[in-house]
């Protein structure tokens, strides 16, 4: 088929798909209750079928992957109507669709169950929607790759696992989904383990690219595994305390309604155990969402294909940590208020203190990570690395919001802000990554220094990437602005209540926003504007000039860009709407939801935003970062080299080497661990314990040799021994007597 025919067919398919999607959203009721199972069932079915279909025809496999991704998305979107129509809320609980899985008689029954509530449906829609678009994009991006079966398998398995994670109704099932996405991330990062060109890595030295990819995958798995260990420990502790409180469960809604376990946990060790358990719980999100101190796996994860980076490390897996914290925080916040009914005041104060400290620590880690990663992004030299650092930074924002939400009286506002920042970020970060993929594909290099001046050659990519960058920076009225605004106002409220932490969060948040817009402009400027680099000129000379991406790739980009714009413009409305929703559910002061008419709500929100002091702070931060960024990179054309000297150079090195954290981790844990293991093997095992066997064996042989010397064969010797033996026997007989069958010494009565 010719190109224009292709385009027409493509357009028709897109329109039909969109119509079916909208129909699913509106009429989703009819799929209930199957949609809860199918929205992860379809992707997993697609994953299992991918290697089988590959036997028939590769195209069948590729298109089936897209089909199953689409079906999964349909199922996820069809659950939206259940939320809004009130089917899923029966007054006290959200709906759960369950099937019994493990039952320990007399103790606990853990189901394989799906919870249909706003947060899970929201996340499922984001995951499957962005996932589907990325799968479509992959058709073009991964064309011609030799191991596509493996790719489709893991991508779809990932989407299925992510949906299980967000829709699970109990902690164990969430953990299972958690590990599934970790496994797929490991497999997909190390996807190109075959490549044999040599590259240089700071930690590994000169290795083949395949070796580096596998190493990056292994690093991701092990670092997140450290976090998972903490999560698992805390799940088991929660299980233990629910048992001792009399109602063994791991189900979220049950944990919410029967909060006695929280009280029991708070009593132990004066609240220290509560804090420890939940910090261990938070260690899981720290690992998965790449927060400090476990943030150093994400930049290496860029070794995988760009679609993998987009899906896993921008849109889905790293959001899992945020989701988990969002899932547990209402339970903890409710405990904060409701425990007063079952605990004595002294202990209640201890519980409150522990919970407050927990949220404070979340906010601190989030803010610190956001700041830290933004500074690293300022000096990064690879396109995808900038985006990776930016992801870490934005995730930090989300955690900051979730942490602050528990403090302020208007807490649900912050919760809503975090959720929306999550959705918006998923979309625009996926957009940025995918367009980065198009650029990488075209320029055949991952370094910013090899790009430049390709705006005329790739206009669509430039446009969408600009939209993404503006959304990322938080320029009004794009998406990122509203959520950052909400986060800053939560911090402002916190400061207003007298806590100095509010000021610190606000300050660092604002600085991070300034850095964000600076590096976004840097990114756009270095990639698209300015003079073409030597690499671009070489490509033109070689006859493969930089060109726009094919249709199958830029259509998803366009859809994502449009989605970004839509979310940007409607976010205030949606945010307010969801705020009403979650307010009813999570607010402790029961009040009826006040749903004002649409326009009024919209205007109300605008007025609220534009008249708050944080608006000035946000705009100020944008200007602070934006003006230098604009001057350096968009008007002027600086390069990636840094010409500073002395102290500036030191700071540059510090930022460039990722605050030396990566190196420190390798030194302490990898080298240190191996040294400990090898040392123990050499000294304790082979020289110590194993030696003990030989000591025993040698002494046994020595003893036997010693005894053998009695057998001299010399006759007189034997005679003497005979005599001695006879005398001894006589002595025994004289001194002892037999008493009732036992040999007892004579003086015994």
């Amino acid at each position: 088929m010719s190109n224009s025919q292709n385009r027409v067919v493509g357009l028709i398919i897109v329109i039909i798909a969109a119509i079916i999607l909208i129909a699913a959203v509106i009429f989703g009721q009819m799929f209930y209750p199957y949609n809860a199972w199918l929205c992860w069932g379809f992707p997993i079915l697609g994953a299992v079928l991918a290697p089988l279909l590959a036997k028939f025809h590769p195209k069948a496999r590729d298109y089936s992957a897209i089909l199953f991704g689409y079906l999964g998305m349909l199922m996820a979107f069809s659950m939206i109507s259940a939320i809004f129509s009130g089917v899923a809320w029966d007054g006290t609980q959200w709906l759960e669709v369950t099937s019994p899985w493990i039952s320990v008689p007399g103790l606990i029954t853990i189901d394989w169950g799906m919870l249909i509530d706003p947060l899970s449906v929201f996340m499922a829609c984001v995951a499957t929607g962005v996932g589907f678009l990325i799968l479509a994009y992959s058709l073009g991006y991964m064309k011609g790759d030799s191991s596509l079966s493996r790719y489709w398998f893991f991508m779809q398995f990932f989407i299925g696992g992510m949906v299980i994670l967000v829709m699970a109704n109990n902690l164990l099932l969430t953990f299972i989904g958690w590990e599934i996405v970790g496994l797929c991330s490991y497999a997909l990062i190390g996807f190109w383990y075959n490549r044999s060109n040599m590259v240089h890595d700071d930690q590994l030295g000169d290795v083949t690219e395949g070796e580096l990819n596998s190493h990056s995958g292994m690093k991701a798995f092990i670092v997140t595994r450290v976090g998972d260990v903490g999560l698992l420990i805390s799940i088991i502790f929660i299980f233990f305390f629910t048992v001792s409180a009399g109602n063994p469960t791991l189900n979220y809604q049950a944990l919410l309604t029967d909060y006695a376990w929280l009280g029991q946990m708070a009593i132990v060790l004066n609240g220290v155990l509560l804090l420890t358990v939940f910090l261990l719980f938070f260690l899981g999100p720290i690992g998965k969402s790449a927060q400090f101190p476990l943030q150093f796996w994400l930049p290496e994860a860029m070794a995988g294909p760009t679609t993998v980076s987009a899906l896993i490390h921008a849109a889905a897996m790293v959001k899992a940590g945020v989701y988990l914290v969002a899932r547990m925080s209402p339970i903890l916040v409710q405990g904060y208020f409701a425990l007063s009914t079952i605990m004595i005041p002294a202990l209640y104060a201890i519980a409150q203190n522990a919970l407050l400290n927990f949220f404070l620590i979340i906010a601190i880690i989030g803010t610190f990570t956001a700041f830290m990663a933004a500074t690293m992004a300022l000096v990064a030299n690879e396109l995808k690395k900038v985006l990776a650092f930016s992801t870490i930074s934005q995730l930090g924002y989300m955690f900051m919001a979730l942490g602050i939400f528990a403090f302020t009286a208007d807490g649900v506002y912050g919760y809503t802000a975090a959720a929306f920042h999550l959705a918006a970020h998923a979309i625009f970060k996926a957009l940025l990554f995918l367009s980065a993929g198009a650029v990488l594909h075209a320029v055949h290099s991952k370094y910013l220094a090899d790009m430049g001046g390709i705006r005329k050659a790739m206009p669509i990519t430039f446009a969408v990437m600009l939209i993404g960058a503006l959304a990322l920076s938080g320029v009004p009225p794009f998406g990122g602005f509203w959520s950052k605004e909400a986060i800053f106002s939560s911090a402002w409220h916190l400061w207003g209540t007298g806590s100095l932490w509010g000021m610190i969060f606000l300050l660092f948040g604002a600085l991070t926003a300034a850095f964000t817009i600076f590096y976004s402009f840097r990114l756009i400027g270095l990639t698209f504007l300015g003079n073409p680099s030597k690499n671009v000129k070489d490509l033109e000379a070689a006859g493969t000039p930089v060109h726009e991406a094919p249709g199958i790739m830029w259509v998803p980009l366009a859809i994502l860009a449009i989605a970004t714009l839509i979310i940007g413009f409607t976010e205030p409305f949606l945010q307010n709407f969801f705020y009403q929703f979650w307010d009813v559910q999570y607010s402790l002061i029961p009040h009826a939801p006040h749903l004002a008419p649409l326009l009024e709500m919209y205007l109300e929100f605008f007025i609220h935003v534009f008249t708050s002091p944080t608006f000035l702070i946000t705009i100020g931060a944008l200007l602070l970062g934006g003006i230098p960024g604009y001057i350096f990179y968009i008007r002027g054309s600086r390069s990636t080299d840094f010409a500073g000297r002395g102290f500036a150079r030191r700071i540059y090195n510090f930022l460039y080497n990722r605050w030396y954290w990566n190196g420190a981790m390798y030194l302490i844990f990898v080298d240190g661990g191996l040294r400990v293991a090898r040392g123990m093997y050499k000294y304790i095992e082979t020289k110590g314990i194993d030696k003990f066997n030989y000591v025993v064996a040698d002494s046994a042989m020595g003893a036997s040799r010693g005894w053998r010397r009695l057998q001299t064969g010399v006759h007189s010797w034997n005679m003497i021994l005979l005599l001695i033996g006879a005398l001894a026997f006589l002595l025994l007989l004289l001194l002892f007597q037999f008493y009732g069958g036992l040999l007892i010494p004579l003086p015994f009565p």
Partner: protein
Amino acid sequence: MSYLELLGVPIYVFLIVAVFLYAIGIYGMATKRNMIRFLIALELLLDGAHLNFITFAVAWQGFYIDLLAQAIVIVSICIGGGVIAIALAFIIRAYNKFGTLDIRKLNKLRH
């Protein structure tokens, strides 16, 4: 305490003689290098045992003599004769092999 007298000496003298014979026999078996002397010492040991038996046979009930013990002694003497015969056969064999009557040559299980 009054002891039975036999041949004008109290009965315990016989026992002492028997012990002497034991001692000489054991001493001889333990110390003598010559196989023949070893054999003689063995016989002395046996004689000591026999004397012991006889003494107790007489001294048992005072007036009654335990004939079973005396019968046993006679059997033992016969057996002792057999023992001497076999022992002498051993000694001849050893003399033929080693060329000497030194008992210290017989200290290995195999050559």
